[in-house]
């Protein structure tokens, strides 16, 4: 239980090579094996360790958890939090909740697309940022809000984008 939560939020080094990462994911799966309905929690942790969930990794998880690949893939493709594509070092989520939308989030997205030269859902060529939009992140009092990794930036204006990105 505590394992999953630590893995979800920690920033520690999860090993550098693919083998190390797979080994770590394997260990984690074994710890979860007897818990009912833990697939989503395993996928969370696996994505935290590996960065994203490519088909190879889904196969590995399916085999190790003794589940059909179709079930694992079905879950991965259902939830927007899981990504099957490689992600940038940092993920920018522009909140598109009602409050942020009303206060100009759409313009902010366009300005970020211009600035980073990528469309929503894509990774910058230097693999530094993934640009994404989010459903309400619950920071409506601070609209328009942008979440970079776990940091929420308040009342971001197109003119403030540079200052925000510089922090990463």
């Amino acid at each position, binding site marked *: 239980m505590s394992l999953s939560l630590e893995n979800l*939020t920690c920033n520690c080094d999860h090993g550098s090579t693919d083998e190390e990462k797979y080994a770590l994911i394997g260990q984690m799966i074994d710890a979860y094996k007897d818990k009912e309905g833990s697939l989503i929690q395993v996928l969370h942790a696996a994505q935290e360790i590996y960065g994203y969930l490519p088909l190879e990794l889904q196969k590995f998880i399916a085999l190790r958890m003794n589940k059909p690949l179709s079930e694992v893939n079905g879950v991965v493709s259902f939830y927007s939090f899981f990504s099957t594509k490689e992600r940038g070092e940092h993920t920018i989520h522009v909140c598109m909740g009602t409050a942020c939308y009303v206060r100009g989030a759409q313009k902010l997205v366009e300005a970020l697309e211009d600035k980073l030269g990528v469309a929503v859902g894509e990774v910058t060529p230097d693999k530094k940022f993934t640009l994404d939009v989010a459903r*309400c992140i619950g920071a409506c009092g*601070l609209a328009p809000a942008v979440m970079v990794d776990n940091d929420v930036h308040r009342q971001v204006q197109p003119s403030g984008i540079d200052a925000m990105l510089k922090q990463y």
Partner: protein
Amino acid sequence: MAKINDKYDLSRIKYNYRSEMGRYEHHIYFCAGAGCISCGCADVARGVKESLDELGLNDKVKMIETGCIGLCSLGPVMLVMPERIFYVGLSPKNIGKVIKTHFVDGQIAKNYCYQDLKTKEYIPCIDDIPFYKDQVRIALQGCGTTEFDKIEAYIATGGYATLHKAITEMTPQEVIDEVKNSVLRGRGGGGFPTGVKWQAGHDAVADQKYIVCNADEGDPGAFMDRSIIEGTPHKLIEGIILGGYAIGATKGYVYIRAEYPIAVNRLSKAIDQARAMGLLDEPLFGTDFQFSLEIRIGAGAFVCGEETSLMESIEGHRGEPRQKPPLPFQAGLFGKPTIINNVETFANIPYIIKHGAEGYTRYGRVGAHGTKVFALAGDIVNAGIIEVPIGMPMRNIIENIGGGLIGGKEFKAAQVGGPSGGCITAADIDVPMDYSELIAKGAMMGSGGLIAMSTDTCMVDTARFFMDFVQDESCGKCVACRIGTKRMLEILQRITKGEGKKDDIDRLLELGAVVKDTAMCGLGQTAPNPILSTIRYFRDEYEAHIFDHRCPAGRCQALTVFEIDPQTCIGCTRCKKHCPTLAITGELKHAHVVDPALCIGCGACYSSCPVDAIHPTKREEN
């Protein structure tokens, strides 16, 4: 940590914490809610510590990090006790001065207090601020006034004593009766009476039952549950254990959004503390009852806020709804009887058990007692979290508590109940905020998101926004929702582009009725509400888009160009600088002009103009 075995242990912890705190003359309640955290409150907190060190005040003043104090738009904020002086808009730069003025000079640093925008007066005492004056805090009690990360702090406010009372002195049926008599209704959206639900859970016979807390707060514009979890995680835990005791469940789950990492973190820490003190996973207070609680983290699917989808997700599957019946209390999680309640509902339980149903029914009105937490957002001055007695007129919330609209703009409508709800117009602003009254107006209480919109908002575009959201979040299991929302979105998209057809309004009404009647779960059944409600109240706006190709609010880009009033324009050049298409020309100190052929109707000039010289107008067709 020592285990808690009886009420004397609770009293001891309470006494120790209080005497520890009593050593200080002043306490600073420093808001560490998610809103303030994102305004950089960590740096300010460090500033407070440094100032206290520097000025040698550490024996006199104690800083406590608390959950959300409520006025999120003015963060970072802090409350100085016992004087109850409230400081807002703090920064690493001004904090040293505030601390020195208040604690060394013994004066109120007035300029850093709340300022009433209408009277320009500074209001130092929190109780005098209109935002707080009319509030009644039950679900939010302790949020903003207790240390969220110490179980001792919660116990010192009487926490877990209610649990002790219930488990040692009351039968499960007595607990349920108390909740029934309080007429508490579900605070997550449905509004089903909690006591009735618990009775069904209690009466179900099974070897295992579950109680689930729905913390998948996905409505755009709603952040009440998040504030409760972050501010008083132990109150939620106590409420869930009480629910478990009442229905006879020994295991509980909290299903929480992955988008709320701070809330997940604080709640899991609180669960660990409760476990270490023997309140979870062990027989409670020497009785046979024991309870375990686990967090399950969602993965970004709005539909998982629907109870049957939520159970699917906890089981590790795709979060698609189940056919009802069987209802969750008959066969829910893992096929066992399951009771699911919302965070705010659970947060009311300790109060109800402690003060009895009479204590709770003092507030609110017949049929819907108690209080409701709302998240105020949108074009409103005091955005944040509030809790008011049910039945308070919306005008009071918007004008007094919310402080009116930003920039003194005119109120047009409020979206109540998120994407499942509807709008309340300026004509109905005196509507009491009550389940049945809101439904009569075509909106619903929902989970409590309240988004104020000014006359700058286009209602067709708002409906399109919500439909875009719902369509994207539709899980695709049933045809009505999967295809119905898609078709409705397409119609709205073409209307906002000026390509609407003459029978589009009728088509939306017909489709809306079908989706409402035939969708499988709550998401689809309520999805057409924003459309139906905006057509009901703003049919003229739809018609303006369809027949005149005009967006009255000037929001729909394809239909709008901006023009500058040469009499009002002061020639500051600001609009020219902001225009992304170089459509604006003019010299400094001379009136500027927009070239309609180049204008894309983005409104960048409109929002940059300091003198309101720019206005949207209809795009002429060539």
